[in-house]
């Protein structure tokens, strides 16, 4: 059985970390923080240590992208220097990835507690609240003071995670209090996204999509998730956000089960039509010799297998408490024998060159499957459990630091904000 070629993966990520990303990444210049997060998180998963110089460098780069009014900008292209800095634009995805990267760049208890030092928590949470629309959805950034962008579940997910990472579960009389987003409206919006086949989309009128399903389920998960592993669980009798947010849970489980497909190696190469592949035409043929050797996943019904959907579907199922297992062995073989690239990393399909996105999500899902070469994985935040632990400490540290200064912070914040 093929194994994770750890050495090659390490080489791949070191290349990403140390040298320029190739020119085609220009079209994703606006999400450089995501690339930075995936690269550093892959280091973390593969246990490649960062020197203290590296950690300082990562921290200062991430913090350089912070917007003075809260949130983080997607890349240096979107953040402006000095006097003009408030004219840059922060966005949700960048903010999510910035926080995780800051946690990754801390080593040990003390550094973890200070990982969020410098993050403008109050401003960020108020910015987050402004991003929410009346219908409960979130925009990706503010434009002329209003939330803009789609209403899809990605934004709900990011907002829910950011809220969890920075806000913690505070009661109104706790310090330091920040007005919360409208959780009820948030759940209601997600609830409207389930489609007739049990899947999920931006709106239920659209086609279901495993990526949007992950985001919706993740958003609900973090509304329910206790502040830290040690904090008290909610009353088991109370209705969770997860219960309320998915109208048809059996349908969702069916949809997720349906993402698995028997991948027939060898067919992909000679197939001319990109999308016309891997349809279960011949029912029962799967039990023939070699059947189910490779199990791929797609994102929508009747679509081709793709590395990242192993992650999106299997991770969603894991967040739902893994009511049933996926075929782990077959999926591992698909990833390790079909899309793992000889130079390290994973491609989208068989034979495609590796890219950061698929290489990271490939590692992520192998970690979810419990690969011995990788750290234990937090399926909700898409980083190692170790990093989640640091995030909890970082939040704690930030809250402590804010408590004393609160009065002063409020006075100046209030004045300049109005």
């Amino acid at each position, binding site marked *: 059985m093929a194994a994770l070629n750890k050495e090659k993966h390490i080489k791949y990520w070191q290349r990403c970390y140390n040298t320029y*990303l190739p020119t085609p990444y220009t079209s994703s210049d606006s999400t450089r923080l995501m690339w930075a997060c995936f690269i550093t998180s892959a280091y973390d998963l593969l246990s490649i240590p960062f020197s203290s110089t590296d950690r300082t460098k990562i921290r200062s780069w991430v913090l350089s992208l912070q917007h003075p009014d809260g949130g983080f900008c997607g890349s240096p*292209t979107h953040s402006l220097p000095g006097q003009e800095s408030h004219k840059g634009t922060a966005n949700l995805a960048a903010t999510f990835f910035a926080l995780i990267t800051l946690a990754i760049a801390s080593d040990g208890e003390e550094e973890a507690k200070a990982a969020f030092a410098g993050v403008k928590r109050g401003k960020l949470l108020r910015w987050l609240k402004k991003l929410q629309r009346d219908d409960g959805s979130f925009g990706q950034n503010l434009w002329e003071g209003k939330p803009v962008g789609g209403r899809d579940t990605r934004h709900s997910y990011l907002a829910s995670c950011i809220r969890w990472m920075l806000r913690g579960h505070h009661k109104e009389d706790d310090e330091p209090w920040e007005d919360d987003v409208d959780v009820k409206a948030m759940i209601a919006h997600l609830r409207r996204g389930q*489609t*007739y086949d049990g899947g999920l989309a931006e709106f*239920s009128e659209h086609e279901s999509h495993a990526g949007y399903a992950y985001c919706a389920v993740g958003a609900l998960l973090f509304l329910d998730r206790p502040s830290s592993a040690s904090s008290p669980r909610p009353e088991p009798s109370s209705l969770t956000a997860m219960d309320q947010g998915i109208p048809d849970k059996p349908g969702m489980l069916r949809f997720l089960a349906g993402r698995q497909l028997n991948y027939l190696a060898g067919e992909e190469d000679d197939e001319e039509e990109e999308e016309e592949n891997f349809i279960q035409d*011949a*029912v029962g043929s799967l039990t023939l010799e070699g059947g*189910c050797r490779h199990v791929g996943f797609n994102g929508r019904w009747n679509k081709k297998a793709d590395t990242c959907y192993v992650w999106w579907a299997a991770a969603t199922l894991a967040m739902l408490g893994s009511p049933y*297992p996926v075929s782990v062995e077959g999926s591992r073989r698909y990833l390790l024998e079909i899309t793992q690239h000889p130079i390290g990393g994973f491609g989208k399909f068989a034979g495609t060159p590796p890219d950061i996105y698929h290489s990271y999500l490939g590692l992520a899902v192998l970690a979810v499957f419990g690969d011995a070469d990788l750290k234990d994985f937090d399926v909700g935040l898409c980083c190692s459990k170790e990093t989640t632990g640091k995030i909890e400490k970082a939040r704690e540290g930030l809250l402590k630091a804010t408590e004393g200064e609160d009065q002063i912070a409020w006075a100046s914040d209030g004045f300049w904000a109005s």
Partner: protein
Amino acid sequence: MAPKSKASSKAAPIPESKAEPPPETVGERSTQRFYKTNTLQKRCEEVGLAALTPAEKKTYSHAQLIIPVSQDRVPLSIKAEREYWKQVSKENLPIRRLRRNYDWGQDRQGRQLDTYKLADFGERSLKQARLAALDILHRRFLAKRDKARKEGSELPAEEVEEEKKTRAAMAVLRKELYGKITGPLAQDPAWDDVVPIPQAEPEDALARIAYPDDYAEAVSYLRAVMATEELSERCLRLTQLVINMNPAHYTVWLYRFKIVKALELPILDEIEWLNRVALQNLKNYQIWHHRQLLLDYYLPSISSDTVAVKKLAKSETEFISRILEEDTKNYHVWSYRQYLVGKLELWTPAELGAAQNMIEDDVRNNSAWSHRFFVVFSNPKETTPGSLPTATDPKVPVATIDRELAYAKEKIALAPQNQSSWNYLRGVLVKSGRDFATLAEFTEQFVSGLGEESEDVKSSHALDLLAEIYKAKGDKEKAKLCLERLAAKWDPVREGYWKYQIAELEK
């Protein structure tokens, strides 16, 4: 100081260098010149100082002293110094001595200039001279324009064109000589008044991208004009430049929309432009979001003109069809189509027909099936507003339900193992509120001899549905058999799921 002696008049003659070939490179020429101006140096290096004749030694040491003496670094009496110079002139020693290993520097590729062939080096010097000359022209233009502007006028277009040519030529020379990139914006006098805000990134920034040459420049100008909130034609062109290189830039589209509104540009022209961009960037999401913003903005202005609305609906659906021809399952395009149907109230037979045609072309096109479901079950005339797709809707007419059930069944018969049509069938049934058992007869035709020797299954989805039908009927054993056969034989990929269903059955 060499003593005055008779012998000195018989100083060693400077040996003729053995007919050396003429130098080919700058470095070779320097070396030859070095030896020519450093008498006996070469010979001394070849045979060693000790092997020189006494006369040679004397000449050699005289030569060595030229510079120290001329710089007063050797204390000599006036007389002695006069004597020394006399000797030098007598021996015909070159007064100017070249230093060794002169550093010519390197070019932009890191090549040492002394490895240049002489002709190439001459060429390079010529380019430097040309660049200097062009720079004078360029400065003259700036001064002239300043003067004109002070007087409230602009320079004639020809002169601006001439200046563009000057700058283009300078840019070529700068790149060739020094590897410096002058982007197209810096070459355009129309942008002279904008001070770009370049991206100041440390060398060790994360996730650095090898940006194409023009990208960094375009972005630095974009940042500048967005900061000053300039809304102009030239900025519109600038947004296009950036969009071409990075269509996922999340504020350039919003900025572009703002310009379109401020300049009151014809929305239909903008849509026309967008069509071209969309065809070049099939997978981009922002393009379709921008299109939505344009439509939301444009529609109120023509809402009273039914002809104009109809025309818009026609051109939009035509473009969608065209792009779906290229990419039949494009998620963004289908999502936009759903937006459009809602916005323009296209709950029409034509729209239903469009989805149907795509299903006819490819019965497994799940996007087309989803669209059909939307057109039928979100039509406000036949459905309850806000009814979830996973819920029964009593308002849907029976005829519609029957038509949709028949359609799904017809397509299932065509391809029994097609997931999309089975999902559709289930979806319609849920909407209708009818019992799953009503599908028993239809579904059973795809399965025969279950659990027996002669077992034959034409569709695993039929078996899945039968399990639910039997469960609803209260026949747990039969339901279980279906699930067991799915796990064991007909759909083992989902073994875990089928076993979970069996466990659920027992509850």
